[in-house]
């Protein structure tokens, strides 16, 4: 019996985010009242963030295997074979709640956490991306959050030395009280040198590596599993503080240690710190774990067992070490100026036992904490499927040029240069396509291979129809990778939703998962890692459902990549794919017509068509037939042409399809479409190949000049739209500085 000096009251249980039935389950499991430390450990392991208790049932429905998949979900990150004995290891993870409370440190430690997930497995990080959602621009906190999040991401990644090569940004009122910061990282490793977290062997030393433990981040994971209210500001102490310098040292020390052969298993300390890492390592390996907290390097004096077990201090790792190599291992960490301490050992009794000052502070069944945590089948209600919007029912605007100009300067559509110029996107010298393209491309060291990365989701589509929205997020990601000439390999998902205890929110979650699963199966695009972030609500109002998809693709030869910029005047512009003028949930309807209550259907996703059109375009890129390629997404065809023109400083003249109303042709958001350019002499043969493959393709214009001209409309100066497109974000942020 462990002495209990703190009374476990219902209030204390509730403060730990545990429901009465969950507490009863604890009592049933251990047959006595838990100590405060034990209550803290249960709270850390059974919260939504760590246990996936509401989502697990549905996550199991996703396809997670494929011929290239070396390791799917359940490890620190997913591992995919890219040939030649090499693997790409990647994952995306949210840091939403901390980033809202303290934008700079919240975002920075989000980046730090995802980088650790990748290098824990033995990979050197080669790319970072981020998917960000902010509140409406006029909301008083938005500017502060944008500024802090961007500085935090840059501050961490730039110092650590990973290129931040892409991402996406949206502004929407639903994120006013709950921004989203989803950080993605990918690293490169040899397939025979990948490290896992499953502990193996009884009586082996558990080694603590990295920075010292402090009182920061206590209860971070529990905080991330709760809704926000007016008292959110008071939660600032739960946010961790990032130290990219230590992380860079930890990277180099870990890679050196792994190369030495001393590592049996390794796990980073992320959410719920020492508790989660130790329990996961033991539970996965069917082993018990004993920790002596007196051995843990501490930054502050007098830390209790409770504080040490729940601290989320950053830049720490836990490792099972080959005891014969302890001295060599320690020497490596001393060389890099990092802490190295044997803090425990593995046992054969499946208990998680913690000692402090020689006294047992916790003694719990490890499997029930870890892989046998509670699981819920939450009730859900699916909304009725919305009806499509006919182009004829959407008011036309005669001033089509003005519409384009306005569109290119919208918060959701304008250039993100102000953000990505604060990120070092060139370090490591392998960036072949940086931010601003369809997908980022990073050369695999020594070449000629390249890897493509893209993060995508259209939350307004998911809100209108979770199933189609889920499909579309995957399809757009697949299309973006295809647009640079990559073969899409696999994805990681970051599922951001509101409170799953509300059946309608759970309905959004289930619908999106079904859509993602359907698309991933149809496109042979398995999910190899991911993260779920629920309870993204403030004062009872949820965010738009935002299941961000992070895709990775492979280019056999990075020099054969395609980019969006027009290459020369006098080239043919062709449209691949079919245009029906689908305007439901379009930027045109929402932002130009100002119809924010659009309840119509988002564009339907025909996965067979996606695949056929995409495979055709990729083959054409790889054959060297195309001079520029751009996928068509938000804002539609006219916006895509403008983006290609602005990237090049070369204009275009377009001939619209007269079978459709002009606004539907120009701004419809039909899926599975690409714009491509070719030399004039190659057009006939291209159309013949498309015809033979039954791929819809049509000439829509010619590049040249310094304007965009549309039949019968006023020419639009490129310089003018570029100024608008580049101008919004810097002007918005500068306006904040004057306040």
């Amino acid at each position, binding site marked *: 019996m462990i002495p209990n000096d703190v009374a476990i009251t219902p209030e204390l249980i509730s403060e730990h985010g545990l429901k009465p039935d969950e507490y009863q389950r604890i009592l049933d499991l251990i047959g006595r009242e838990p100590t405060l430390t034990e209550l803290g450990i249960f709270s850390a392991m059974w919260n939504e963030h760590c246990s996936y208790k509401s989502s697990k049932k549905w996550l199991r429905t996703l396809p997670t295997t494929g011929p290239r998949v070396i390791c799917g979900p359940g490890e620190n990150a997913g591992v995919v074979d890219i040939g030649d004995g090499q693997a790409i290891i990647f994952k995306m993870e949210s840091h939403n709640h901390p980033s809202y409370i303290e934008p700079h440190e919240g975002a920075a430690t989000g980046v730090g956490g995802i980088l650790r997930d990748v290098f824990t497995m033995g990979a050197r990080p080669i790319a970072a991306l981020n998917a960000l959602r902010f509140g409406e621009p006029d909301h008083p906190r938005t500017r502060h959050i944008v500024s802090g999040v961007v500085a935090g991401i840059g501050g961490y990644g730039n110092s650590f*030395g990973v290129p931040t090569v892409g991402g996406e940004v949206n502004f929407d009122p639903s994120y006013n009280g709950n921004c989203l910061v989803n950080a993605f990282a990918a690293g490169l490793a040899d397939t025979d040198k990948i490290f896992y977290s499953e502990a193996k062997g009884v009586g082996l030393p558990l080694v603590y590596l990295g920075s010292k433990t402090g009182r920061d981040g206590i209860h971070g994971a529990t905080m991330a599993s709760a809704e926000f209210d007016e008292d959110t500001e008071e939660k600032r102490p739960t946010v961790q503080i990032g130290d990219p310098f230590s992380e860079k*040292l930890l990277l180099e020390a870990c890679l050196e240690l792994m190369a030495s052969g001393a590592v049996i298993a390794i796990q980073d300390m992320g959410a719920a710190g020492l508790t989660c890492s130790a329990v996961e390592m033991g539970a996965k390996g069917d082993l018990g774990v004993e920790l002596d907290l007196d051995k843990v390097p501490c930054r502050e004096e007098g830390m209790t067992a409770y504080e040490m077990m729940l601290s989320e201090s950053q830049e720490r790792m836990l490792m099972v070490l080959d005891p014969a190599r302890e001295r060599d291992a320690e020497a490596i960490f001393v060389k890099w100026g990092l802490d190295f301490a044997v803090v425990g050992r593995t046992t054969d009794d499946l208990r998680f036992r913690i000692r402090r000052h020689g006294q047992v502070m916790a003694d719990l069944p490890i499997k029930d904490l870890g892989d046998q945590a509670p699981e819920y089948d939450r009730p859900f209600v699916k909304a009725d499927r919305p009806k499509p919007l006919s182009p004829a029912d959407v008011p036309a605007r005669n001033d089509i040029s003005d519409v384009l100009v306005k569109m290119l300067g919208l918060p959701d559509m304008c250039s993100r240069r102000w953000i990505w110029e604060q990120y070092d*996107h060139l370090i490591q010298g392998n960036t072949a396509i940086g931010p601003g393209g369809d997908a980022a491309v990073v050369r695999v060291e020594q070449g000629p291979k390249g890897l493509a990365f893209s993060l995508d989701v259209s939350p307004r589509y998911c809100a209108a129809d979770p199933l189609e929205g889920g499909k579309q997020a995957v399809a757009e990601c697949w299309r973006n990778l295809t647009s640079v000439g990559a073969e899409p390999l696999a994805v990681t998902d970051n599922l951001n939703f509101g409170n799953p205890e509300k059946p309608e929110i759970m309905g959004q979650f289930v619908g999106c998962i079904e859509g993602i699963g359907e698309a991933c199966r149809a496109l042979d695009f398995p999910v190899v890692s991911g993260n779920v972030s629920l309870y993204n609500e403030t004062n009872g109002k949820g965010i738009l459902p935002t299941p961000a998809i992070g895709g990775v693709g492979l280019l056999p030869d990075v020099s054969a990549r395609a980019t969006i910029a027009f290459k020369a005047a006098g080239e043919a512009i062709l449209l691949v794919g079919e245009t029906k003028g689908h305007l439901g949930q379009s930027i045109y309807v929402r932002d130009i017509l100002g119809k924010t209550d659009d309840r119509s259907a988002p564009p339907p996703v025909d996965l067979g068509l996606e695949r056929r059109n995409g495979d055709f375009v990729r083959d054409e890129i790889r054959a060297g037939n195309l001079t520029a390629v751009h996928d068509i997404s938000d804002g539609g065809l006219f916006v895509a042409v403008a983006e290609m023109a602005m990237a090049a400083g070369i204009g275009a003249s377009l001939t619209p399809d007269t079978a459709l109303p002009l606004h539907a042709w120009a701004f419809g958001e039909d899926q599975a479409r690409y714009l491509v350019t070719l030399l004039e002499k190659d057009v006939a043969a291209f159309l013949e190949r498309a015809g033979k493959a039954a791929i819809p393709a049509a000439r829509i214009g010619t590049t040249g000049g310094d304007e965009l001209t549309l039949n019968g409309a006023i020419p639009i100066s490129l310089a003018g739209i570029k100024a608008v497109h580049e101008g919004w974000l810097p002007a918005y942020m500068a306006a904040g500085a004057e306040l």
Partner: protein
Amino acid sequence: MSMKSGVVVFPGSNRERDMLYALENITGAKPQAIWHADTELPDLDLVVLCGGFSYGDYLRTGAIAARGHIMPAIAKAADKGVRILGICNGFQILCEAGLLPGVLMRNAGLKFVCKEVKLEVANADTDFTRKYKRGEVWRCPVAHGDGNYFTDPETLKRLEGEGRVGLRYAEGTNPNGSLNDIAGILNERGNVFGMMPHPENMIEPMNGATDGRALFESVLEAVA
């Protein structure tokens, strides 16, 4: 045509791999990585202090590294005429160590900036720029938060008068507010050069241009 080069690695250096790769790619010889805790340098023609955030930039950029174990050996090598090249954090370290005059302050825009700029060769008669032409403008990326070069009027006058400004930001691309658009400067003797931009990231067609190669080829020719 062989050159013995080395790249100093401090805790927090992060462009050492870029630099090692560039040196090998351009000179054809494998450069050495030099550990900051060493107190002696091997026999080298060129010592590079690379980019990064040595010691996390936690005091002032370059301030802690400038007092590192290896620095006396670097000062000694500089005295002997060995070419020393400091890029970005390396430039900051050289200034903090007193091997180059002046300081690099926070960017005028107060933000980290990563973008391509234009560099004008202000003096082509140096060991680091001789493969360019005077007045030639070339493309090069920058990636820094503290690149705003500043010095007292007297020193500035001397730098300009003695042709010790090697590179200047051109065509309105000064990204950080540097005095006189200064991007790179030499010591009195002409064997120590510091610059904020990253020529090592502009050496292959995939980088968008190969304009940075000539800087390394200049040193290669100078030591031949």
